[in-house]
C-alpha cells in the first residue's frame, strides 16, 4: 500500500484537473493542466494550490487520495487567485492557506451535502474559500494586481467560436480561445454527449443572457459563460441518465443559470468579487434538490449515488431495462410450481382497479376449464390445495389463516382478501398472497422465508368465486395498501396467442400461461467460470490466425471479469440459472466480442430454448466507416436486437444468436453467432459471421486453472470435438 502512494499522488493531481470538466482519465487532466499554463501566472498558482492540497490530504490521511476529490477545489482557489494577483511570495502564502482551507471545506461539505439529500459538493468549497481569500486579499497591501487579458486582440477562430472557447477556458480561469479549444478536445475525447451538451447549453444560456441584457459586456459573458456549460453538463449528463427529458432539463438549467449569472454579477459587484461558479452551483443544486422529491420514474432518473459519464450511465440503464424489466418494477419469482394461467392481469376488469391495479390472479386450466367433473365442489378445481411458495425472500409480517373457503360461485366481501400472507421484502416493499386455503398457512409472523419456501396452499377464501391465488406488491404492510408494478423473473411464458418463450422479465396478460423452467444442471456445470480459469482459443479471422487466452479474474469490488490477454475485459454474473455478460471495457478484441455476443445472456434451462437480449452495438463486427456512422446515429450507444436459440445437437449444445442493428434508410446490420458447448468441457467453438464478409472462428485449444497459494495449476488439452 505504501508503495502505491507516490504513484497515487500525480494521478490524483491530474484527476483533479480533469474533474473540473467531469473527465475521469488522468491524461485528459494533464491536457487541462497544460491548457492552464496559457497564462503561466494562473497556471503556476493553480498547480501550487493543487500540490499543497494533495500533501495536506495525504498528511491528514483523508481517504480516496487517488480520486483527486480533495484537490480540485483547492486548485480552483489557486487558479482564481493567480488570475487576479501576481504570483510572488505573498500570494504564495495566501494560496497555501486557501488550498489548505479548501481541503477542510471539501471534506466537511461533502459530508454535509450528502446528508442533506445525497447532493454532490461540486465546487461549492471553492466558492466559499475563494470568496474568503478574495475578500481578505482586498486588505493585503502586499499583493500586486495582475489582470489577465480578458479577450485576445482580434479574432482567433471565429467570433462565435472564440466566445464559446473563451467561456470554456474561463472555467480554469484561462479565458482564451486556445486553452478553451484544448479543453473542448479533452471533453470530446471524454464524451461526445458532454461536448454536445456544452455547445447547446452555452448557445441557449448565452442567447438568454444576451437577449435580456440587450448588449452585454462581451468580457462578462466570456468570463461567466462557463456556468451555462457546467449546468447543462451536470444536469443533463452527469447526475441524470441521458434521455430527452434530461436533455430538456439541461437546457432549462442553462437558461436559468443565465438569469442567476446576471443576478450574481450584480450582487458580487458590490463586494468586488468575481462570479466564479456560483450561478452553476445555485442552479444545479437547487434543481437536483427539487428533483429528489419526485417519485421514482423511468424518465430523467437521478444518478446522485452513482454519477458517471453519460455513455456509461445510458448503457447501464439500457441494459438493466432490457434484462431486469422497466425501472421501478419489482421482480418476483413464481409463487407456485407447474403451469398456471393468468386469471386476471394488471388493470383487470373485475377487481384489479386502482389502487390495486398492479396485481395478478392465477389459476390452473386444462383445455380452457379450471375444474374437472362438474365443478360443484372445491376439490374439483385443479389448483385447489396446491402448495404456494415465497416469490421472494423476506419476513412474514401478517397472516390470516382461519377464514373458510367459499363454495364455488360464492364470495366473502367482508374479508375481501381472505386468508393471506404478507411478506416484507428487502427493498422496503411488501408482497401479498391472498385467498389461501383455510388452515394451510405454514409460517408464523416473524419467520424469515427464503425464495421458494412453501407458505400455504391455494384456496378460495375472501372475494374468490373459484380457487385462485392473488399476488401483488404493495407499499406498506397494511392489508390492501396501494400497489406498485412488479414482474415475473426468469419464466417460460406462453402468451394466449403464441408459442412458449423464456423471458428474463414479463408481466403476463390475462389467459397467458407461465411455468418455471427446469435448470439443465449438466449444461450449467459445463460452463465453469471460477476465478483463475483460463481458456486458450485458436482464433481464425480475416487478419490471420492467433492464440488468445481468456482468464477469469475477480476485481477488488467483487466483480467477476473475463479478461483477454489484450487487456480487454467484460464483467459477468453467473448466478444460479443464468450467465450474463455486461460492462465490456477496453480496446476492441474480436474473440472476446464474439464470445460476449454469442453468450450474452445465457439461461441454463433445458429443452429447445429461445430468448431475447439487447447487447451493446459496439460488439457487432463493423467496418470503421460503419462504426463511425453508428456512433453518429446512436451517440449514446444502442442495444442490438438479439435472438437466441439453443438445442442439443447429438453430442453438444448449440447456441445460435442472430443479432441486428436497426439503421435508418438501409437494411439492418447483422451478425450471426454459433457457440458449441460440450458437456464438462465448456465452449469449444465460437463462430461469428457478420456483414462485409466478417468471419471469425475460435476453437478451444486448452483450458486450465491458474495456481493459487497451495493450489497447483493445471491445464487440459481440449480434444477436437465432433461437430456433425
Amino acid at each position, binding site marked *: 500500500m505504501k508503495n502505491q502512494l507516490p504513484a497515487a499522488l500525480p494521478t490524483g493531481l491530474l484527476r483533479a484537473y480533469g474533474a473540473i470538466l467531469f473527465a475521469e482519465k488522468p491524461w485528459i487532466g494533464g491536457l487541462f493542466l497544460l491548457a492552464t499554463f496559457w497564462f503561466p501566472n494562473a497556471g503556476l498558482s493553480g498547480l501550487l494550490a493543487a500540490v499543497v492540497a494533495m500533501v495536506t490530504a495525504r498528511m491528514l490521511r483523508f481517504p480516496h487520495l487517488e480520486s483527486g476529490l480533495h484537490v480540485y477545489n483547492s486548485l480552483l482557489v489557486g487558479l482564481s487567485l493567480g488570475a487576479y494577483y501576481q504570483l510572488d511570495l505573498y500570494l504564495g502564502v495566501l494560496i497555501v492557506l486557501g488550498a489548505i482551507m479548501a481541503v477542510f471545506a471539501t471534506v466537511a461539505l461533502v459530508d454535509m451535502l450528502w446528508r442533506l439529500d445525497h447532493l454532490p459538493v461540486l465546487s461549492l468549497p471553492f466558492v466559499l474559500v475563494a470568496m474568503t481569500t478574495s475578500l481578505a486579499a482586498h486588505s493585503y497591501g502586499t499583493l500586486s494586481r495582475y489582470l489577465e487579458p480578458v479577450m485576445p486582440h482580434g479574432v482567433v477562430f471565429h467570433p462565435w467560436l472564440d466566445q464559446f472557447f473563451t467561456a470554456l477556458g474561463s472555467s480554469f480561469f484561462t479565458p482564451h480561445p486556445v486553452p478553451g479549444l484544448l479543453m473542448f478536445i479533452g471533453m470530446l475525447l471524454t464524451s461526445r454527449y458532454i461536448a454536445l451538451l456544452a455547445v447547446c447549453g452555452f448557445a441557449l444560456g448565452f442567447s438568454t443572457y444576451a437577449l435580456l441584457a440587450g448588449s452585454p459586456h462581451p468580457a462578462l459573458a466570456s468570463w461567466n459563460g462557463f456556468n451555462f456549460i457546467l449546468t447543462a453538463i451536470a444536469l443533463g449528463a452527469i447526475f441524470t441518465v441521458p434521455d430527452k427529458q434530461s436533455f430538456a432539463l439541461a437546457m432549462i438549467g442553462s437558461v436559468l443559470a443565465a438569469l442567476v449569472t446576471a443576478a450574481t454579477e450584480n450582487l458580487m459587484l458590490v463586494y468586488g468579487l468575481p462570479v466564479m461558479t456560483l450561478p452553476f452551483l445555485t442552479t444545479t443544486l437547487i434543481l437536483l434538490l427539487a428533483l429528489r422529491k419526485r417519485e421514482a420514474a423511468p424518465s430523467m432518473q437521478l444518478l446522485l449515488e452513482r454519477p458517471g459519464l453519460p455513455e456509461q450511465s445510458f448503457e447501464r440503464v439500457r441494459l438493466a431495462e432490457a434484462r431486469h424489466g422497466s425501472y421501478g418494477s419489482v421482480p418476483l419469482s413464481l409463487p*407456485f*410450481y*407447474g*403451469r*398456471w394461467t393468468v386469471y386476471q392481469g394488471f388493470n383487470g376488469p373485475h377487481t384489479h382497479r386502482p389502487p390495486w391495479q398492479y396485481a395478478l390472479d392465477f389459476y*390452473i386450466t*386444462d383445455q380452457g376449464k379450471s375444474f374437472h367433473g362438474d365443478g360443484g365442489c372445491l376439490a374439483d378445481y*385443479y*389448483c385447489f*390445495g*396446491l*402448495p404456494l411458495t415465497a416469490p421472494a425472500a423476506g419476513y412474514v409480517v401478517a397472516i390470516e389463516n382461519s377464514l373458510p373457503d367459499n363454495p364455488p360461485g360464492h364470495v366473502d366481501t367482508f374479508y375481501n382478501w381472505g386468508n393471506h400472507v404478507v411478506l416484507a421484502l428487502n427493498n422496503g416493499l411488501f408482497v401479498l398472497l391472498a385467498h389461501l386455503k383455510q388452515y394451510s398457512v405454514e409460517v408464523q409472523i416473524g419467520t424469515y422465508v*427464503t*425464495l*421458494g*419456501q*412453501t407458505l400455504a396452499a391455494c384456496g378460495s377464501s375472501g372475494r374468490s368465486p373459484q380457487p385462485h391465488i392473488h399476488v401483488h406488491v404493495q407499499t406498506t404492510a397494511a392489508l390492501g395498501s396501494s400497489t406498485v408494478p412488479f414482474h415475473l423473473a426468469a419464466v417460460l411464458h406462453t402468451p394466449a396467442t403464441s408459442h412458449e418463450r423464456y423471458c428474463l422479465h414479463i408481466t403476463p396478460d390475462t389467459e397467458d400461461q407461465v*411455468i*418455471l423452467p*427446469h*435448470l439443465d*444442471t*449438466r449444461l450449467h456445470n459445463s460452463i465453469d467460470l471460477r476465478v483463475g480459469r483460463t481458456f486458450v482459443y485458436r482464433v481464425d479471422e480475416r487478419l490471420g490466425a492467433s492464440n488468445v487466452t481468456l482468464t477469469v479474474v475477480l476485481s477488488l469490488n467483487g466483480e467477476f471479469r473475463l479478461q483477454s490477454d489484450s487487456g480487454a475485459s467484460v464483467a459477468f454474473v453467473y448466478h444460479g440459472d443464468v450467465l450474463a455478460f455486461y460492462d465490456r471495457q477496453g480496446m476492441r478484441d474480436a474473440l472476446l466480442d464474439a464470445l460476449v455476443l454469442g453468450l450474452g445472456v445465457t439461461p441454463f434451462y433445458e429443452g429447445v430454448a429461445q430468448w431475447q437480449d439487447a447487447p451493446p452495438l459496439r460488439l457487432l463486427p463493423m467496418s470503421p466507416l460503419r462504426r463511425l456512422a453508428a456512433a453518429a446515429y446512436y451517440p449514446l450507444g444502442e442495444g442490438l436486437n438479439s435472438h437466441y436459440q439453443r438445442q*442439443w445437437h447429438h*453430442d453438444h449444445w448449440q447456441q445460435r444468436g442472430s443479432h441486428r442493428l436497426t439503421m435508418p434508410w438501409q437494411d439492418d446490420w447483422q451478425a450471426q453467432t454459433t457457440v458449441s458447448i460440450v*458437456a*464438462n468441457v465448456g465452449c469449444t467453438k465460437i463462430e461469428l459471421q457478420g456483414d462485409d464478409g466478417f468471419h471469425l472462428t475460435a476453437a478451444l485449444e486448452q483450458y486450465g486453472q491458474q495456481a493459487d497459494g497451495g493450489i497447483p495449476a493445471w491445464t487440459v488439452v481440449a*480434444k477436437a470435438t465432433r461437430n456433425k
Partner: protein
Amino acid sequence: MSTTKNKWQKPTLTAHRMGALNKFGNTSPQQHLEAFAGVALLPLMEQYGSPLFVISEQRLRDNVRRLLRAFETRYSDVVYSWSYKTNYLAAVCNTLHQEGAWAEVVSAFEYEKARSNGVPGNKILFNGPHKERAILERVVRDGARIHIDHLDELYLLESVARDLGQQVDVTMRLNFDTGYTEPWTRFGFNIESGQAMDAARVLGHSEVLNLRGLHSHLGTFVLDPRAYAAQINIMCAFMTQVEMDTGCEIESIDIGGGFASMNTLHGTYLPPEQVVPSVDQYAEVICSTLNAAVRHRSAQGKSKPRLIMESGRGVVDDAEVLLTSVVANKRLPDGRPSLVIDAGVNVMFTGFWYNHKVTPLQPQEGMAEDTVVYGPLCMNIDVMRASVMLPPMNVGDAMMFSPVGAYNNTQWMQFIEYRPHVLWVDTEKRISVVREAENLAIVTGPERVPAHLQEPFREQQEG
C-alpha cells in the same frame, strides 16, 4: 288377458352364501358398455375380428397429463420417464414422448427401440440388471443415463468409460426396507448392509464415473402413499451422507414407479375405487416429503434434486381394453356356470395376478351368477377369471376385459393362438391398427427348416 309371452331365460341356481355381500362388496348390478373412447365396439369386432385390443389415445394423454400436473404443481423439477416394459408399442411410447416423457429402458432391445422411436440419448434412463459391454459402449456414446445395478456392472462401465476416454454421469440403484412393502433386494445396492455406501465410495474414487443420481423402486401396485414418504426420506438421508462422504453432487432422485391402477390384485377384497389412491394423493405425499427433505439445500448452495418417476401401470393401464367373444357355455360339476372365450392368458398375461373387470358389450338379461371364465388354450392354467358375477351369456356374445394396458402387450406370448390386432382410437376418434394380428407367415417367418426336414409327407403324397 295379455297374450304377450315373457322371453325365455336360462334357469339359474344361486347358492346362499354368508359374508360375501355387504355394502362394500363388489355387487353392483352388471352393466353393459357399448363404447370405449367414444367408439362403438361391436362394429369394430365385426371389422377386425375377435379377440381385439383397443387403445384410447385420449385416455392415455389425459392420464399422463394428470400425472404430470399433479407432480409439477407440487415440486419444482419433475421428469416423467416412460417405463418401456409396461407397454412398448411405438404408438403408445410416442404418444407419451409427445407429452414430454423420457424413456426408461431395461435391456439392449428396449434401448434400441427407444432410440429408433427418436428419443435422444440424454432423455433415456438405462436400468435393469443385464447390460453388456456392447450396449454400454453405445449408451455411453449417446450420453444416456445408466442406472448401475451391481458392482460387476460398475467395473464394466468404468472400463468402458476409460476405453472411450469419456466422463460418465451415473445413477445408483438402491434397495432398502421402508416398512411398507416387501423390499426388492435383488435390484441395486442395499443401504442397510452398507453395500450402497461402499459402492458410492468406489464411484467417488473413480476418475471417469460421476455419481449424479439415486434410484430405487419400491415394488408394484403400492397402495399406501406413505411408502413413498419413507422411501424419499431414506433416499434423501443417503444423498446427504453420500455427498458428504464422497464429494459428489446428486442431481436427481428417481423414485421408480409402482402407482396402482384401477385394477384388483388377486386376494383383494375391496374394489379398486376404494383402495387405489388418486394420483394427487401420491403426488401430495411424495412432493411435500421431498420439499421438506431438500429445503436446506439452497442454503448450502446446492440445487434441489430433480424428481424422476417411472410410473407405467398408473398411466397406461386403463387406456387399453381387450374385447373377446364367448365360444361356449359349460356347467361345471360343482354347479357353477363357466364360459370359454376366445382370449386367454396368452394375450392377457396379467390375468395371473389381477381380477380384471369384465363387462358385457350387449345388454344381458337374467340373474348374475358366480361364473368361471376360461380362455381358449388347451392348458389347465388358462383361467381368465376364477370367479366373476356374470349374467348368462350366449355363444357369440362379446365382453370387455379392462384395464389391460399395462404389461399385456409386452408379456403376451405367441402360444397356441395367434396374437390379435391392436387398434388405436386417436383423439379425433379415428381408428388405426397399431399392431397387426399375427398370421402363419409372421409366426413362422424367423424359422429356418433344414433341407432334410422340409415337407415330411411329400414322399407319401407322391407315392
